[in-house]
């Protein structure tokens, strides 16, 4: 092995490990590994670990958003949320409804669309491109368009439904705002499931389907006994990711409903965290909420792995 010596030439160390000499002192070569990794580690520490630790630190303090004063309050912020039924518990419930609702629908429509797009037909490439379109539209555009379409006074959808004799009710009203939000979110994010599932579908050996057909299996049985087992591992990851994304979703919920009176009916935990931090200006409370959300998601991920990972192992 080539190593550097005091005079700049290189030698092989007896133990096989490369050596470096610096000002007369021998430095094992594996130290260079640390040195080279250090910038990346510093970045990780600075950009990921520091904010997380700072968030934990803030969560045990009472701090006004823009006054440089903080007071240590221990676990008071967390204790507050235990009995905060209108804020925290309601937000947890609404967030759970939103996350489960959107993920379930994304799964159904995403897998369905992927199965269709895996078939051979004229214009398949174009249709595949169209299927990805909702995911490419900026959230603000989606929200403006949808609020326009669903508006009770001049929206095209209520108008069309009334033309055919149906009364849609208030699609942006308090009673249906969550449903509208779930449907819009599903439309926006289901291509994520399509991409993942379609990629896996394309790697399934066609001979499996051929053999199943020979054995007399119909489309439903082929889906159940061949397709589903093959895509199960992909769906396992996709569902986990989508749930984490949807439970922490902020932009579309905020833009679609929050800030108005009906925002009361879509105030999920991330929105409530924003309200605490930036509107009530209580950064300590907001940090405590973010820590709680983090812990909820860790618990969910652990439970999810425990329940479903074994079922996905070959």
């Amino acid at each position, binding site marked *: 092995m080539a190593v550097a010596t005091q005079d700049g030439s290189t030698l092989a160390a007896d133990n096989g490990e490369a050596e470096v000499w610096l000002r007369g002192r021998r430095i094992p070569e594996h130290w260079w590994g640390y040195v080279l990794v250090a910038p990346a580690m510093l970045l990780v520490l600075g950009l990921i670990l520091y904010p997380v630790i700072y968030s934990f630190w803030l969560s045990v303090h009472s701090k006004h958003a823009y006054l440089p004063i903080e007071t240590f309050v221990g676990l008071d912020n967390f204790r507050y949320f235990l009995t905060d039924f209108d804020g925290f518990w309601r937000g947890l419930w609404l967030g759970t409804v939103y996350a489960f609702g959107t993920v379930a629908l994304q799964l159904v429509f995403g897998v369905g669309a992927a199965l269709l797009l895996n078939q051979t037909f004229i214009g398949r490439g174009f249709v595949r491109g169209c299927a990805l379109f909702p995911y490419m539209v900026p959230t603000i555009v989606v929200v403006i368009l949808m609020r326009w379409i669903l508006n009770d006074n001049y929206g095209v959808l209520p108008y069309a439904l009334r033309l055919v004799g149906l009364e849609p009710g208030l699609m942006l009203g308090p009673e249906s705002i969550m449903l509208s939000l779930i449907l819009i979110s599903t439309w926006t994010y289901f291509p994520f499931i399509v991409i993942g599932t379609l990629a896996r579908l394309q790697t399934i050996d066609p001979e499996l389907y051929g053999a199943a057909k020979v054995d007399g299996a119909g489309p439903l049985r082929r889906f159940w006994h061949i397709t589903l087992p093959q895509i199960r591992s992909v769906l396992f990851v996709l569902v986990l990711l989508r749930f984490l994304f949807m439970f922490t979703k902020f932009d579309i919920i905020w833009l679609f409903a929050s800030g108005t009176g009906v925002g009361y009916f879509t105030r999920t935990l991330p929105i409530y965290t924003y309200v605490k931090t930036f509107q009530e*200006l209580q950064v300590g409370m907001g940090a405590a909420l973010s820590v709680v959300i983090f812990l909820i998601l860790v618990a969910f991920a652990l439970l999810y792995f425990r329940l479903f990972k074994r079922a996905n192992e070959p």
Partner: protein
Amino acid sequence: MQQAFGESRRYGYRTLLAGATLALLLPTALAAQERVIQVWHTEPNPATKAVMDEIIADFIETHPDVRIEHEAVGWGDLDLKMQAALAAGAPPTLTQAQTYVERSLAAKGMLMPLNDVFDSIGRDDIFDVINFIHTYDDGNNYGISHAVGADTIIIRKDFYREAGLDPDTAPATWDEWLEQLKALTIDSDGDGRMDRYGLGLAGPSFFINEDLYMWVGSNGGRLFDEVGRPTFTEPQVIETLEFWKELNDCCLSPDWLSQSYLDTFANLATGQVASILGWGRGTGYFEQYAPDAVAAGDIAVFDSKPAGPSGEPGKFVTQFDNESWIVFKDADNADVAVEFLEFFYEPANYLKYVESVPTHLLPIRKSIAADPAYLANPAFEKWEDWVQAQLKIIAEDDPRPLLMTQWEDLKLPFTAEIAGSGILADMVTDVVQGIRTPMEAAERAQGRAEELITQLGYRKW
């Protein structure tokens, strides 16, 4: 040859090094000389924005070392943007803000006194109410209104006439108003679905806060007592919530909670509602989207608002639109922002500014208000009633800044936090949606507000 090449290379290295050093240092040196300020204003209206561009360009011409980065922010969004910027520690140098934001920030020692701006205008030339609002106990001025206006009930006269109502007679009491609004809410084709509602309100929390404090004030009530304790369970507030519920059930556009402020203007322009609450800037909107109604003189405003059952007849609270300019004292180049404000209020510049939306931006300078050049603006003839209604309200009816049901509320340091918290909007939503009775909703809001004030360290009871 080789030596010559070596020297040439060394020379090249030196030149390169010198060039690189110069390239690194030059921008720093230039940046050190350049004084940059960030300005947010609440007039995204193209005409006002163009005037702001012009005023800024003129200022820079006389201050070549200054760069002004300016942004027009819709005033419904300003509070949110400001709070996020403050929490991130990156507020602009100079911004417009609601009075309660100015008061909250001044109480926290974050604002720069603008006494020089007042002096440069001449305090005698500023309307008394502006001097009063922006003069603090320590004698300093921490903000100055950019312009003034008043919130009014905007109606469609043609719909009033159709309903057999006199469009020139404003309702004096809530009962009278309800009767009017019921008559204006109609199912014209008999299909069981209302085709027009009496009143359209905007649903964002910001506007619910507005309506609530105006109605509580018009009902002889208040939102906070002498020591700043919330008074949401007082009878005047409960009556207001009951009134709101009744209004919601009979006469409000049913999706009002999800309607934006501009939606309400669209609804009035297209005849979905017969009246709304709003500001003079709406004239431009109607000219564009309801030209026939404008030409027929059917867009009009009342010069008063009705009083609630516990209020005094003829006395009402409406919003005094008097957003302030404020300067953050710790911002870089705060002194430049003060210089810019002095320039902004110079007669020629200020005249251009208020004339950009003459029906909305009424001047704070007496000399401008009386200036024949200003009064000759054609918009005043076209929208004379609207302007006169605002002037009458400002002169005679004691309108108050947002969330101030009484002038003593100016001293409360936590109004911005209450406004942003959504507590008031939740209380109203609870009631109009039938989730809680007015008293239950008020008690819940009272508890939340007291808790918030306590957590912020401002509890004094």
